[in-house]
């Protein structure tokens, strides 16, 4: 599927600098006409803690970090013990032989020692972290990537530190490159790449959300820092002035959500992003947005729960929370993009849906989608988003009073922005009549209450009719249908390719709109499917239950993973095969487990 490819893993303690190494490598790849998908299995500590960062480099676009491991850059002893054994046949380990030993590698795996001190001796005294640049130089040789692109990448990375630092790092990289050239054979993929001057960008889902929000005309973004959603804030804050977005860090997520609803009510396109814990605090404000019909966009980037859970690990188990955020019945739209470019484009849709239907739109992402890095092709980015503000009244009505909550067929009542002359109105979180006058305290009026509930509810039905239903991907008559939502689309695609290579045909249904749900269309597709398997990062199968609730369709099996790591294509393919081996009977439940090859425990407690 990916054609020519190779995967490099960087491992060490947090703070060892592997992220900077991977960033530099990513730039080399992105500027050489190649593509990558990088995933960082990091821990919630600033220094110390184990980091495992994989960069999958390929000739063609790839949608997961894959199952291969061709090279490990080991920065500490734990890295050597834990990850060197995971290498694929023919794999290599790069390491600083002044500090580490590569004992006990499985057969067919080659240690590649770099005597960093000797290699860099001519360059004067070095900082410990500068071993990384030597190893990076060696790695670029082994991968058969252009060394001049590494020089560019280092210049970009160290440019702010001044020319001497850039020059030193370039010299260190060249020393590593020359050592590798003299001493080692390049990896298999080297020399077979079709390199070009095509330049791509390296982007995370969070950066795509942020840039998409800017293109969608977001005017107000509020945030409280929370992993793994902070990346959106970290892109928007330094670009606020150029993009004209008021970016406000608030005292807590309650304030964030209330500011967003206030700004949305006042006429700004307003958004925030958070993770499950912060979203829990936002729920009352989401209900307010439903009740006062204030357009607002909430990005929920899921991590492992419950409670503080796994701050730096991925999961898809906040679906129930998003369905049920806030009390009472009110319309909301939940949508889930599936890749980085989709994160960008989803912002156009999310803001337009929020404005057109005057309701909260919840965009669901997860740590994997929001934080993994991927090459993206600038040619596929159209920033000229269509901005549809929906029905806005800009002057006093010709006759009669302005009815902010006028009963209409679609359920949408034309709105006016505060400040408009002649459309003065009251909005309230209490139930209200068409004018906005509260009917809750003195004169609760059951017929008005019923009409207002129904007016609001009509909006989702009307919205659903405009949303494109999902389409079955892959061979139409396949005996297996894999169903997933959000970020699992890519891994299911790649798993299907692996299955096809094993002679098992499967197609897939990727769900983008969770609420409202295309119940009829999905039910019809699944009625035509021979056997269905749901694939999701949740232990209880929240999505499988939603699917059943909406369509009556009970999937034959569930492939689940909830250890904090994303699915790999092979895991999914193996689980599907397991289902078939077990007779393909309903009730199949398979839990994918991330192998830990380490024979040694690395306890964090003091002994």
């Amino acid at each position: 599927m990916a054609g020519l490819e190779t995967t490099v893993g960087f491992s060490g303690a947090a703070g060892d600098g592997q992220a900077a190494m991977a960033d530099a490598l990513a730039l080399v790849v992105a500027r050489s006409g190649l593509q990558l998908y990088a995933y960082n299995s990091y821990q919630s500590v600033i220094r110390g803690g184990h980091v495992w960062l994989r960069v999958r480099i390929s000739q063609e676009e790839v949608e997961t970090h894959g199952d291969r491991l061709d090279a490990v850059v080991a920065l500490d002893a734990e890295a050597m013990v834990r990850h060197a054994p995971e290498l694929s046949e023919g794999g290599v380990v790069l390491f600083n032989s002044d500090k580490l030993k590569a004992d006990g590698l499985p057969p067919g795996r080659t240690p590649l020692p770099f005597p960093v001190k000797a290699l860099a001796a001519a360059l004067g005294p070095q900082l410990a972290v500068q071993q990384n640049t030597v190893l990076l130089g060696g790695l670029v040789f082994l991968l058969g990537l252009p060394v001049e692109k590494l020089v560019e990448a280092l210049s970009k990375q160290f440019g702010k530190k001044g020319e001497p630092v850039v020059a030193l790092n370039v010299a260190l990289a060249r020393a590593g490159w020359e050592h590798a050239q003299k001493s080692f054979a390049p990896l298999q993929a080297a020399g077979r790449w079709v390199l070009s001057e095509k330049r791509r960008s390296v982007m995370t889902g969070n950066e795509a959300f942020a840039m998409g929000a800017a293109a969608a005309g977001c005017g107000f973004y509020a945030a409280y820092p929370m992993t793994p959603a902070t990346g959106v804030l970290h892109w928007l804050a330094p670009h606020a002035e150029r993009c004209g977005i008021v970016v406000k860090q608030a005292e807590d997520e309650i304030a964030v959500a209330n500011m967003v609803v206030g700004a949305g009510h006042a006429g700004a396109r307003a958004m925030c992003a958070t993770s499950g814990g912060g979203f829990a605090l936002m729920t009352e404000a989401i209900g307010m947005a439903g009740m006062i019909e204030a357009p607002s966009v909430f990005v929920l980037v899921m991590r492992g729960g419950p409670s503080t859970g796994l701050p730096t690990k991925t999961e898809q188990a906040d679906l129930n929370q998003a369905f049920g955020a806030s009390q009472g019945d009110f319309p909301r739209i939940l949508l889930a993009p599936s890749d980085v470019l989709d994160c960008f484009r989803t912002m156009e849709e999310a803001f337009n849906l929020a404005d057109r239907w005057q309701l909260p739109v919840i965009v669901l992402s997860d740590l994997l989608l929001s934080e993994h890095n991927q090459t993206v092709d600038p040619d596929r980015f159209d920033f000229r988003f269509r901005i549809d503000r929906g029905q806005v009244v800009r002057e006093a009505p010709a006759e009669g009073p302005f009815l902010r909550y006028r009963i209409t067929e679609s359920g949408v009542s034309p709105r006016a922005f505060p400040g408009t002359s002649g459309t003065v109105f009251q909005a309230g979180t209490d139930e209200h009549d068409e004018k906005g006058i509260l009917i809750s305290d003195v004169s609760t009026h059951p017929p008005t209450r019923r009409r207002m509930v129904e007016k609001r509810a009509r909006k989702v039905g009307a919205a659903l009719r405009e949303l494109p239903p999902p389409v079955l991907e892959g061979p139409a008559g396949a005996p297996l249908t894999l169903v997933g939502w959000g970020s699992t689309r890519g891994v299911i695609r790649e798993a299907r390719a692996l299955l096809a290579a094993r002679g098992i045909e499967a197609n897939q249904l990727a769900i983008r709109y969770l609420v409202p749900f295309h119940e009829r269309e999905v039910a019809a597709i699944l009625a035509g499917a021979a056997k269905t398997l749901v694939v999701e990062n949740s232990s209880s199968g929240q999505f499988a239950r939603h699917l059943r609730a909406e369509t009556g369709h009970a999937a034959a099996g569930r492939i689940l993973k909830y250890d904090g790591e994303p699915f790999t294509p092979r895991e999914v393919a193996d689980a599907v095969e397991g289902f078939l081996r077990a007779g393909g009977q309903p009730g199949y439940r398979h839990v994918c487990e991330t192998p830990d090859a380490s024979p040694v425990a690395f306890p964090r407690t003091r002994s």
Partner: protein
Amino acid sequence: MSTLPPSPLRIEDFKSEVAPDWCPGCGDYGVLRAVQSAAAGLGIAPHELMIVSGIGCSSNLPGFVHSYGLHSLHGRSLPVATGIKLANTALTVLVTGGDGDGYGIGAGHFIHAARRNVDLTYLVMDNSIYGLTTGQTSPTSGLGMKTKSTPAGNAEQPLNPLTLALASGASFVARGFSGDPNHLAELVKLAIRHRGFALIDVFSPCVTYTKLNTTAFYKQRVYKLEEKGHDATSLTAATERAQELGERIPIGVLYAVERPTYEELDPVLRAGNPFERPRGLSQELGLELLAELG
């Protein structure tokens, strides 16, 4: 106090079609009148005024004023109002609520709104009781005060909203009394004209659920700072006056200083009202931003 030209607007222009439903004799009537009178006096047109409230008896106030209004969530009026103001800085944004709303459930937002100094006027109708829920203790209930939730007497020290606001960095802190709506209207005018966050804690007695903090109680005790003489630019003097809660209680402006507002310090807001700004990105700028990542 006002140096503005005479306004063509009258109190009647700010009366909504909804009649207040507070108990007869409630202090909030006086606050309502003061708000309407101040808006009229300052010549703020109804469509330029946005009143945001939380939940509680006093938070019903926006519904009785002919202006834009938003009756938001319990304790959340300040962040909602902040979002509104930062979305459209041309609006005059007034925030109203009670002591439970502002100093209890919303206390966190209160502190941060004070130090943030967004140009908001916050009117707290302080009656030391939860009235709408029929009489429980509030953050400003006196020690030993018997309420439905504290039949043996309130065991918690009351919070002092004025010293809290001062300690939080508020640039305008005042106290009003609903029993003197004309004086209160002048305070509201000053607070609206103040650039930045302005707090007016208003003694606004509940006639139904407390027999302690009554209008008569305050009438006997309040005195006007401006008559007595007070340096409202001194934090020390303001803090001292704020703690005067015995036989004599000051009303008026305790503290008023000029300091840059949030709007003046935020680079995006400094460039103009975001409400007027064209939205979205050009393809050129978008590609430039994308290229930063390549």
